[in-house]
């Protein structure tokens, strides 16, 4: 019985030549499938790139928003000063008319 078993084992474990092209197929598969570590590195790199681009976009957006806000503020300031200039100019006309000395009767009325 032990001899039979030994024989069976020998038969089962006998060296068999692989089919033709086996080596090429294995090598091709290795080349196509990234290894676990390579896959992990790729995933890390992708996450890092994504985080970096999100951060860059956020910084760029904040910078542009601040620049736009500053331009808007400077323009609003310019408009405010211009508005006050026009207001002052018209008030000035009224003040001058009110304070004009002895206006001719047919020139000024209703001040």
């Amino acid at each position, binding site marked *: 019985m032990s001899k039979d078993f030994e024989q069976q084992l020998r038969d089962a474990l006998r060296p068999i030549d692989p089919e033709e092209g086996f080596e090429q197929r294995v090598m091709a598969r290795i080349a196509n499938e990234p290894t676990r570590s390579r896959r992990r590195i790729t995933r890390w790199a992708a996450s890092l790139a994504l985080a970096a681009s999100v951060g860059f976009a956020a910084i760029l957006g904040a910078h542009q928003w601040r620049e736009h*806000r500053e331009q*808007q*503020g*400077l323009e*609003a*300031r310019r*408009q*405010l*000063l*211009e*508005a*006050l*200039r*026009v*207001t*002052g*100019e*018209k*008030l*000035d*006309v*009224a*003040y*001058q*008319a*009110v*304070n004009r*000395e002895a206006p001719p009767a*047919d*020139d*000024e*009325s*209703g*001040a």
Partner: protein
Amino acid sequence: MNTFLKHSIAIIGGWVCLCISAATLAADGQLKLPNFDGLADKASESVAITLDPALLGLATRFLDPAKPDEAAAREAVKGIKGIYVRSYKFDEDFAYPKADVEMVRKQLTAPGWQQLVQVKSRKEQQNVDIYILVEQERANGLAIIASEPREFTIVNIVGSVDMRKLHELEGQFGIPKLELEQKKQQ
């Protein structure tokens, strides 16, 4: 409730809302300015400024308190909620629609508005009208309508107006300084 009744309630509700919003608009001192966009092409000089509370707040933050004129401006706009200016100059007489100016003038007949100064110069054909909106004995709005044959200006300031501070701006921004007290003494 039948459909007619529902429609009637909706229409009345709409009218009430419209009236309330119109009254609010008039009460806060903001005038309804006509659309003068088309005039900008015809005008030799034009100024159209719309500073609502947000923009006015932003503009104030950009004023430099170290500069005397800007510090005075900052003081002058305290309590002001909006500034609206339309000013156009033309190369020929009466190139602007007088009806639009009159439409603004009409709004100043609403309760609360009081005419402070009226200047009519026949020689120069110059009219300047200054109105203030008085609410609870305080000036809560200012309107200036100035017209000449080749120029018209409408200024509407909304909010608590301190005429003294506005007057203090004389001499700033190129406005000639008037020596009113000296003149009075003479």
